[in-house]
């Protein structure tokens, strides 16, 4: 007879993580644990200027006074900071002159990730900054970007080559004291990406970074800083995967976006960190602080497709400081097995005529817990602010949870805020309708889920949207033929 939901749920549980492989490269690791010496070690290793070391040490001092937040709707054993290795660089750190010089094994890793450089270069026109564990190993398309004055490099390189830009902007959107994980990141971050688009320049290609946690027991603390100068435009893509391991790995990143007057930043993430196995063992703790600030007439748009990580704690936010600025948040979050996600956004309206849109689509399966948590804050001077939020949850099993926690704070009478949320089961009559047209239940579910996420997937650049759709299918499709 028919394929029941229970059978589907079983298939979902048995779904293997398709990106679980370990690259065997000798790593240059720091001793485990966290203290001032480790921070000095990281800073020295990276040949950093004195101001940056001071910045790290101050952040560390702040972090020591803070406690891990517990308000999110997630439960996990807090990582022991003394057991984590805070620095791990692939041993071979010299810069590659050409793509042919890159370690074949590393190339293989990239190939498994589906981002073979040759192909990327040739076919997609995407410039990739590949971050394996902590050090950026390869960048491409540099010369083309150079011509336009666009800087796109690893964070460490930016510290060496463009210290004035880094010093000016770093920590201005996410201050070191912002929260526990942001403080930790500010103290121990190892690498990340830096991007600067000069005045009036429209970046002609999608900029892309691939993050990957390789070494067991390492925390990944990358830092991304994107500065779009007046009247410029950039679309930035970020993809994340990690190999399969039994222990929980910590990932605490900080992303800061700065959109100056009339600038626009589109930031898209496809996150597929290892979610742990079907018993809930292992997987990444993804505790990320992402925030952007918009000056006058600027726009920041966050799009995320989250299918991975054991625990996700992530709220890409917009501070709409300038008049007429616009913030957008489009999110798909899928949880399965024992995954827990607490994700959403904050839209802080400070300027006049500011506008924000929130579209969040949660999908819960297995025994997972999926929460939307969002803040819409209209300040006193934000005359004529507008917000529209739509948060939908789709339930795929009777053992999972779907939760919605919106915070709406309004201090201006001319504001208009609309929030809507729905929670429902995947439509049985929709499945039946598809089946009556000859479509297998698994395909039917994938079709319906993709349709349900359409508004968000539409925001992704073409090649990313295809990858995201595949990921959704992998996360939710069973293996039954």
């Amino acid at each position: 007879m028919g394929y029941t939901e229970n059978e589907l749920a079983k298939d979902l549980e048995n779904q293997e993580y398709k990106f679980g492989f370990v690259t065997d490269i000798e790593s240059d690791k720091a001793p485990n644990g966290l203290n001032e010496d480790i921070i000095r070690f990281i800073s020295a290793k990276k040949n950093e200027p004195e101001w940056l070391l001071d910045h790290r040490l101050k952040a560390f001092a702040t972090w020591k006074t803070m406690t891990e937040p517990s308000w999110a709707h997630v439960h996990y054993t807090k990582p022991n900071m003394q057991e984590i290795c805070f620095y791990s660089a692939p041993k071979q750190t010299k810069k590659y002159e050409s793509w042919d010089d890159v370690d074949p094994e590393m190339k293989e890793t990239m190939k498994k990730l589906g981002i073979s450089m040759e192909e990327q270069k040739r076919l997609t026109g995407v410039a990739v900054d590949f971050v394996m564990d902590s050090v950026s190993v390869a960048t491409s398309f540099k010369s083309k970007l150079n011509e336009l004055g666009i800087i796109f490099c690893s964070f460490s390189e930016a510290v060496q080559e463009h210290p004035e830009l880094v010093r000016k902007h770093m920590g201005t959107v996410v201050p070191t004291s912002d929260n526990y994980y942001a403080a930790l990141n500010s103290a121990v971050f190892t690498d990340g990406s830096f991007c600067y688009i000069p005045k009036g320049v429209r970046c002609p290609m999608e900029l892309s970074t691939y993050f990957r946690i390789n070494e067991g027991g390492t925390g990944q603390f990358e830092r991304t800083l994107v500065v779009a100068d007046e009247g410029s435009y950039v679309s930035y893509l970020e993809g994340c995967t990690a190999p399969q391991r039994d222990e929980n790995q910590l990932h605490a990143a900080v992303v800061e976006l700065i959109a100056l007057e009339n600038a626009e930043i589109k930031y898209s993430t496809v996150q597929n960190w290892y979610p742990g196995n079907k018993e809930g063992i292992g997987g990444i703790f993804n505790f990320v602080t992402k925030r952007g600030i918009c000056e006058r007439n600027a726009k920041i748009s966050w799009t995320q497709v989250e299918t991975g990580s054991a625990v996700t704690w992530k709220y890409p936010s917009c501070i709409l400081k300038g008049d007429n600025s616009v913030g957008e948040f489009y999110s798909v979050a899928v949880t399965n097995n024992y995954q827990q996600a607490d994700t959403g956004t904050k839209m802080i309206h400070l300027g006049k005529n500011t506008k924000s849109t929130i579209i969040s689509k949660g999908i819960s399966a297995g025994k997972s817990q999926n929460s939307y948590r969002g803040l819409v804050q209209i300040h006193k001077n934000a005359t004529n602010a507008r917000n529209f939020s739509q948060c939908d949850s789709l339930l795929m099993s009777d053992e999972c949870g779907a939760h919605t926690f919106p915070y709406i704070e309004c201090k201006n009478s001319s504001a208009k805020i609309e929030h809507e949320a729905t929670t429902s089961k995947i439509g049985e009559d929709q499945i039946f309708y598809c089946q009556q047209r000859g479509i297998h239940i698994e395909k039917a579910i994938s079709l319906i889920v993709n349709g349900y996420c359409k508004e968000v997937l539409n925001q992704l650049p073409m090649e990313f949207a295809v990858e995201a759709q595949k990921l959704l299918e992998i996360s939710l499709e069973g293996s039954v033929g």
Partner: protein
Amino acid sequence: MNDTIQVNKLNAFIDQLTKTDLPFSKDIIAISDATIASNDFPTTRTEAWKYTRVGKISSIHGNDSELIIDKISDSHIIDANALTFVFENGELIQQFSNKEIPKGLDIKSISQASETELALIGKNVKLEKEVFNSLNTSYATDGIFVKIDDKIQLEQTIQIIHIVTGENTISNMRNLIQIGRFSEAKIIFGYFSSEATSSFTNVVTEIFVSENAKLTADKIQYESAGNFHVSTEQVAQEKNSNFSINTITLNGTLVRNNLNIEIDGSNCETHLNGVYLLKENQHVDNHTIVDHKAPHCESHELYKGVIDDKATAVFNGKVFVRKDSQKINAFQSNANVLLSDDASVNSKPELEIYADDVKCSHGSTTGQLNEEAVFYLRARGISKKSARHLMVSAFIEDVISKIKNEEVTNFTHSIIKEQFGWEF
């Protein structure tokens, strides 16, 4: 967290209170005492009090107020035909209360009830870490005891009126309402003040709606400015029961309502409606929890508010659907209109769903009056002021029209007219 030693205001606060002599179970009193001993008044760091500061309550220095009411004014009676019981500062005033009690109904002050009759006191209401509930339990003054037998259709509405009088008066009123199986009843709660300032009324009402029973409650809060009010209704619904409550808040400096409804049996229906109209420096905070613990139930929640001057409104509505509570339809809606640039609103509609075959939704809107519509009315010769009043009236009438008791509707309209000048 900041663990520096601070003066515990709660310790100082209880010094002025008298321990209750009501026959509550010793265990319940012990839990309340322990909560009071180990906690302080909540601060905005506590999630449930994020938007509401209670500092002014903690600094009230209470007196033993004399009871001063010698006659009951019409403005304190909502339904003249109802079976009425009047309390002043938490104590029952016999002379204004009905003596003829219909058959099947046991109604009296809590102090007249026996320990066995009060066995349900504290059964569902949360005491751990809940300072106001614990204060109410350990220092309860008095309250109403209502018990309706099985299979009784009570024609007459029960009306409980509480009037706070005097300066710095602290009243801890505790009520227990039990509706028997297959019975039906209507109850009105009215909270008023008379020549009162800086008073604090802290009410806990425990309501038990048995199998197949139906209870409709209308609650009107109209204490004058300068007074503080915290109240908790803890409701338990058994299977096939129907419970509706309309909460209408029209005045008071600081009002906090906790409405907690636990739906323990299947096939229940629950309605929660609320209206809050605020001006000056008022602060009104409605916290509601609808906890679906059983399958095949539906709940409907609609709260609307109009906020003027420097007032602040808070709405926090939470819907839980527990594991295995399938086939739940739960709807929640909160709408706010801000009339002034200094007014503010914080709205937090929440859903926590642990079952899959459910239909739940919530919506929240905040905005101003539709100025296009105001303009349209003005173009038809209506003054700007009247046009706005009309629009506000239409906005809240949506909720007020849910009140079934005409006396309550008329009373509400008359207060709104008196307080705000809005016509219906």
